[in-house]
């Protein structure tokens, strides 16, 4: 079996297939497992700690002898048909030995290179040898060869990290590898990206300080994030007011991303738990909170004295020290409000490399660029290519529960047919 993507959906599919005694190759592009889920401090609607929820299954994954986890790896070619695919994988060198490294972090400090940490949405710095965040699993750093002085030629003799390592785990001799695998079925679970709010300049993103995307805000609140969970403005002050703007990019994309209303409500809890007196306004169009548990959650959040404003034609501008959010309210009246911080809830969209992977797998994309389900007999995990299944946000925007369900469903399809 080949599973592409070690986020929550890929992990679920891998563990279930392993349980059925299938040998699983789990290919992950980054150096860590858990995908986007581990970026969240808490998840709606029960406000459970997300990393605590996922860490046990990440551990299980690492200890599972049926699962061959290939990090820093990408699928390059898929040939053959259901039951007998041959797959070429390119696996980049980590330059740190997974067996010997114990994850003590001693190698980071001496590294002379500093750059923006992508995992933290660029809100903090990392070294050229690094783990993306505390608690990442596997807890083994990688060397970013593009920025490492030794590998990019700026200082071929630098071995600061190797000297700091007590376990001889830093191995400059590792090479990128090409692997050839034979698998019976493939599950693509490569997740999503968020719409870039710069494409909708009216929201002021990256023009005005303290306008954040939802993912940036998740990291600001995260206890293992760049501010250790302290919500502060760029100038170091604590915000007194915040506006959460829903549906950023919805018109451009042409669909509702299903999770933004709920995580925006969750942000109320984030803000109020850290800054009890903060004034929060939620600027939304239609409140999408389907299902048996979510309205209760909404009512709890509303109880935190949040202003729910139904609005359109939103525009964000700098006004003095503050940020002005201008909008048309439901009855067509123009209004505005002044806040210290703006959080945008951008649409969920396919990954940059979704179209490349679709081509490699030989499956079509839908009009939005998500992987197209075949929908024969009503299932959304089957594709037009027998033996290739899709799970999670690669098929369309969805929450954690629905991603896990699709992963289990893909396993159901695989096990009932072979």
């Amino acid at each position, binding site marked *: 079996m080949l599973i592409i993507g070690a986020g929550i959906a890929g992990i679920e599919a891998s563990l279930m297939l392993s349980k059925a005694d299938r040998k699983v190759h789990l290919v992950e592009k980054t150096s860590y497992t858990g995908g986007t889920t581990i970026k969240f401090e808490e*998840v709606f609607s029960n406000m459970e700690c997300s990393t605590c*929820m996922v860490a046990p299954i990440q551990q299980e994954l690492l200890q599972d002898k049926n699962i061959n986890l290939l990090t820093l790896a990408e699928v390059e070619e898929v040939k053959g048909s259901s039951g007998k695919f041959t797959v070429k994988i390119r696996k980049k060198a980590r330059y740190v030995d997974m067996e*010997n490294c114990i994850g*003590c972090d001693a190698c980071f400090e001496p590294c002379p290179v500093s750059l923006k940490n992508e995992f933290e949405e660029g809100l903090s710095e990392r070294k050229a040898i690094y783990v993306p965040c505390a608690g990442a699993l596997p807890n083994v750093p990688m060397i970013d060869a593009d920025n490492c002085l030794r590998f990019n030629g700026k200082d071929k003799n630098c071995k600061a990290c190797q000297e700091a390592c007590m376990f001889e785990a830093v191995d400059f001799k590792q090479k990128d590898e090409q692997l050839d695998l034979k698998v019976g079925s493939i599950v693509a679970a490569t997740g999503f990206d968020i719409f870039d709010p710069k494409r909708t300049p009216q929201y002021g993103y990256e023009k005005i300080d303290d306008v954040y995307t939802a993912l940036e805000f998740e990291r600001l609140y995260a206890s293992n994030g760049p501010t250790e969970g302290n919500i502060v403005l760029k100038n170091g002050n604590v915000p007194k007011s915040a506006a959460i703007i829903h549906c950023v990019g919805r018109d451009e994309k042409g669909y509702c991303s299903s999770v933004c209303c709920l995580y925006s409500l969750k942000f109320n809890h984030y803000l109020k738990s850290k800054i009890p007196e903060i004034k929060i306004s939620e600027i939304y169009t239609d409140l*999408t909170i389907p*299902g048996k548990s979510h309205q209760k959650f909404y009512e709890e959040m509303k109880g935190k004295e949040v202003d729910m404003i139904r609005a359109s034609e939103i525009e964000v501008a700098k006004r003095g020290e503050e940020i002005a959010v201008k909008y048309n309210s439901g009855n067509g009246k123009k209004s505005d409000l002044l806040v210290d911080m703006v959080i945008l809830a951008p649409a969920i969209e396919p990954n940059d490399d979704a179209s490349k992977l679709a081509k490699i797998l030989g499956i079509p994309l839908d009009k939005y660029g998500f992987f197209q389900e075949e929908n024969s007999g009503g*299932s959304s995990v089957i594709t037009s290519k027998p033996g290739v299944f899709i799970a999670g946000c690669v098929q369309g*925007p969805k929450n954690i529960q629905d991603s896990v369900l699709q992963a289990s469903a893909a396993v159901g399809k695989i096990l009932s047919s072979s």
Partner: protein
Amino acid sequence: MERKIGVYICECGPNIAEKVDIDKVIDAVSSIDGVAVAEKFKLLCSSDGKKFLTDQIKKQGLTHLVISACSPKDHEKTFMEVCENAGINPYLFQLANIREQCAWVTEDKAEATKKAIRLTKAAIKRVRYHTSLEKKEIEGIPDVLVIGGGIAGIEASLQLVSSDRKIYLVEKTSSLGGLITNFEKIYPGMGSGSSIIKQKIQDVNKKENIKVFLNSEVEEVIGFFGNFEVKIKKITEEGEIAEFNVGAVVLATGSTLFDPKKTPQYGYGKFDDVLTSLEFEKMNLSGEISLKTGKPPKSAAIVHCVGRNEKGYCSEICCMYSLKFVRYLKDKLPNIKVSNFYSDLCIPGKSHQKFYEQTKGNNVNFVRSSEIEITKKGEKLDINYKDETGGKNNIPVDMVILAPAIEPTSDAPKLAEITSISQGNGGFFAEEHEKINPVSTSTEGVYIVGSDQGPKDIPATMIQAEAATGKILSSLIPGRKIEPEVKTSQISESLCIGCKLCLSVCSYGAITFDETKKISVVNEVICRGCGNCVAACPSGAASIKHFNFNQLYQEIMEAVQ
């Protein structure tokens, strides 16, 4: 038998060695009675370390093992495997965490060393009271009971059935198919609901290994994952009971509609031509949309969110099927004027907004409204409402279609009790974990699929049926044994006072009451060792293996001495 305890301290490179004076720890524990050997090693979890431990256990003839190293979350499993491979019972082992709980958090080396000594001594003390625990294996029956013959139950049955797996499909009505048989079309693809289900019913009937029980209800499910004893009863013919055993149970009993008579403002049951969504589906399927008078309606209102406030949740599918109704109406009566009265348009996901945009159009109105009241005005039904600006308004129409909330069926409480699962928000069956285990329940081997778990549409129902299939196929494999939890609860026959408190706190239905002896009895195959009964037991009769009172007491006493 003489105890020979081996104590090994991991340096964890500099992680522990720099913060803890390991030689002092060794000195402090070497002379403890029963300790045969105390040594340090650079990195015990490495392959060299594991080999070293294995050799030591064999060479020294150790009976018990204590390791002072990292968190059990990191390497407890690693060292238990070492024990097993070296020939000692893995439960005769204790791991003291002197890294996360000591070296990493205690600045002063002397203090850290003292703490490491205490933690190591406590582990040595504890391991003396450990007993060997053996893995059990039980035969798992691969067959499955599926309750509910709607699309979810049928889909699960078709995916589960095989030459070595029988399916018992129990349906309380006289035919298979469920609600979907009423749907002319299914959004967003607008494929035919009734023809999809007809095909699937034919497939079910062709499968020899799917045994269908119509007009039947499940009376009893007793047992555990791998072996449930099931009793089902014919509803029509008194007393006819079938009995069989299965390894797993799938609940796919669907949902029903909120009764709009409970919200009299909508005029349902009072005025002609006020229909529920299901009544309208049936009318549409019959081929003709007409009023009581027999005439076709010239205008219709679709009222969303009926009963939402009463139920306290959004039923997820009403906005979308209301849009589908607009299409039904427009297909059959192209000139009809349709007004949708809604609060928030809930159309999540990649295909639904497009469906909405394609539904908008001539004579289709979307009115964001609240405080709706339906009255009779002459021949017409009058929709009185408050609009977005707070102003009162009204629109007269010929026909009203209500979109009532989705709620659990009336037999949900009974089924929950029979299968020892709980009902959660809205009375729907509760998942084991809302996010990461949404088709499993607190009873291992009992799965919930479709709208008995919460309101959902056909594609979401199908996904759940497929997901439960995945869970069952990956864990209940013909010919493979099942390994139940080893660290289970036990109840002492002599100490139990028969108060039954433990029965009320057990989430897994693992405890039964022996009426002759008047004591509680644990079924170790079902018990998952959560410890609820231990906490509740007032007489000290309940205890958990490997975490019993004495083991914990001795460990703590030694640590705080």
